[in-house]
């Protein structure tokens, strides 16, 4: 027993000594050669369960916040930071946590945070909140939405032009009004090029289950689908895994993935080739920075709904994979983009609108 006590004492001493070292090490970091901008505000994001390394939506938001931090020369966790949620029950905790740490502007990333943002915003009327991807009520809440249907329409055009089998696929996350917007736009884009192309639409019922995404992708590719557009966050990573697997086994295989939210070119890289045809880029980072800037200027859009689209660069189509995304596809996509911006084409946002759209084509 005495020995145990001795051992414990030694370990404790060690900890105290080493922790002193730890503190020293920290202070030498974070040296910067610029001065923080005094007009900056303390801004943070609360992610959904994907986390800031989901290679998609949350990551894009975090990149926007980091860019803001660099621009104004701010210290992470001092003036900007994020809280990751692992479960639905943590949204409110995390929002309140940031609020109590004197964050002035807090973003809830994802429509799953809608209830939590509304609750916390009504409890803390002096703090500003922004909800990305859905519309929340409250004078101190700004709602940030995107015209995903437009971007999805354009990648649908690209998919239709790329497909050789006449069958393309769509893998959604959770079957919800938001993801239906992607679906409707995509299907409309495909059918606009060639109404005879079949679109296989399936939902993973998850934004994080990569296994499920992979399963769906496998069954789609097996049934002759050659281009899959995913709007499934982390579950969509499974689509990439499956496509890369096929490509690694047979370099001649004609399988393509269309990424979402960020330019997912890197995700598709396999040996010398790349399975990412293009990506429907939703610049959450642009929106995050825009809302912060407006707030700094004193124009926080509380109670308003901001809608980012093709015109303001909030939505775009990636052309990183030059080999696959040929000039022909690029020019066609550009054509359709102009038609959308001119108002010649009204892209459907729901399944009902899509039905009307498709029946008009025939």
């Amino acid at each position, binding site marked *: 027993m005495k*020995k*145990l006590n001795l051992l414990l004492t030694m370990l404790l001493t060690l900890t105290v000594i080493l*922790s002193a070292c*730890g503190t020293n090490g920290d202070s030498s970091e974070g040296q910067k050669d610029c001065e923080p901008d005094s007009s900056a505000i303390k801004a943070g994001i609360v992610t959904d369960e994907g986390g800031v390394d989901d290679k998609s939506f949350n990551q894009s938001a975090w990149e926007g916040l980091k860019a803001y931090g660099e621009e104004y020369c701010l210290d992470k966790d001092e003036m900007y930071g994020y809280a990751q949620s692992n479960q639905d029950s943590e949204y409110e*905790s995390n929002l309140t946590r940031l609020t109590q740490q004197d964050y002035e502007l807090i973003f809830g990333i994802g429509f799953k945070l809608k209830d939590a943002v509304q609750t916390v915003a009504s409890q803390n009327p002096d703090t500003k909140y922004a909800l990305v991807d859905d519309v929340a009520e409250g004078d101190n809440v700004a709602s940030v939405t995107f015209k995903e249907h437009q971007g999805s329409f354009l990648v649908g055009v690209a998919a239709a032009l790329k497909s050789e089998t006449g069958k393309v696929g769509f893998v959604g996350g959770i079957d919800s009004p938001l993801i239906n917007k992607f679906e409707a736009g995509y299907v409309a884009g495909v059918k606009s090029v060639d109404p005879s192309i079949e679109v296989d639409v399936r939902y993973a019922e998850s934004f994080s289950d990569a296994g499920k995404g992979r399963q769906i992708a496998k069954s789609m590719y097996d049934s002759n689908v050659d281009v899959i557009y995913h709007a499934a966050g982390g579950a969509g990573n499974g689509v990439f895994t499956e496509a890369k697997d096929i490509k690694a086994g047979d370099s001649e295989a004609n399988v393509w993935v269309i990424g979402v939210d960020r330019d997912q070119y890197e995700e598709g890289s396999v040996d010398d080739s790349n399975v990412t045809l293009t990506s429907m880029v939703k610049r959450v980072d642009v929106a995050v920075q825009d809302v912060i800037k407006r707030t700094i200027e004193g124009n926080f859009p509380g109670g308003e709904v901001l809608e980012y689209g093709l015109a303001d660069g909030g939505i775009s189509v990636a052309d990183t994979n030059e080999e696959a995304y040929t000039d022909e596809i690029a020019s066609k996509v550009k054509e359709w983009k102009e038609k959308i911006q001119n108002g010649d084409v009204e892209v459907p946002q729901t399944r009902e609108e899509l039905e009307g759209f498709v029946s008009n084509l025939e």
Partner: protein
Amino acid sequence: MKLQKLTGAWIPVVSIIFGLLAGAIIMLLFGYNPLAGYIALWNGAFETPYFTGETIRLITPYILSGLAVAFAFRTGLLNIGVEGQVLVGWLASVWVGTEFSLPMAIHLPLAVIVAILAGGIWGFIPGYLKAKYQVHEVIITIMMNYIALYSVNAIIRNVLTDRDDRTENVAETASLKVSWLSDLMPNSNVHAGIILALVAALFYWYFIEKTKYGFELKAVGYNPHASQYAGMSVKRNIMLSMAISGGFAGLAGAMEGIGNFGYMTLNNGFTNIGFDGIAIALLGGNTAVGVVLAAGLFGVLKNGALNMPLSAGVPHELVDIITALIIFFVAASYMIILLRHKLIKLYTDFKNKSKKGGANK
């Protein structure tokens, strides 16, 4: 079943210290200040009344899921199905809460009782199969978890709503939120369920220790053959044990349904309340007091950990490792007992040897 017999309050305390030290070493290795990290952990759980409330809110279902697992353990059964029973109980409580309009005095108890019954039935099925056909309860309960997860999702989508991803909010008459608790810890989601959970722990202790049924359940757990010989019905006790265990789990689900959230969303995956319950039951040595304390530890660690990345800059991946290490050391307390025996033995051997050595000279 040695874990049941752990005695001595010092073992868990030493285990927690070991766990904290191991976590500290991890933080040091990655260049973070462990003291700042642990202060952030503590503050995250208790700094303001809000966080205290959230910690209590988190502890509430943990107590019940821990009791559920522990109850089955006492009868020698491993109920891995608490997770599914929680989901079923959650759904049942929300169903009663949204679909009926009744005065509170009937509505709230009804929601709670239906949740307990739903969980109990979900637990009874594997119990019945085990008793009648000797199918191993671990396999069935694991599978029943998946059945529960996907059935519950399907019911939310197609029965309770029209293809929506969450249900309506439960009526106020079925809500466990009470104003005096909410006023005490403003804005937090703390609810009266904690009282129910503590009452459940009391019931657990009374039932296991003081009643004939509890004695029979324990006897079956220790030695089913001897119990059979003594005239007890092993089959009946297995079914009873699983059903009551499921009832505790169903109540844990009600804590989320009519306590914390007040609604139910589609679940991407398991809630982990049930799986954590296994660790909590083992940590607590399958006793009522132990389970409550272990649930407390889990709640504090889980809620406090959310604060570590923000206040101390420790990345959340590391935080997960650290909390897992603390739990690991506590769970491995048996290892510490062994270590203690070894140390004592070494010490006495050393003493004896040096004495003998002295005599030889």
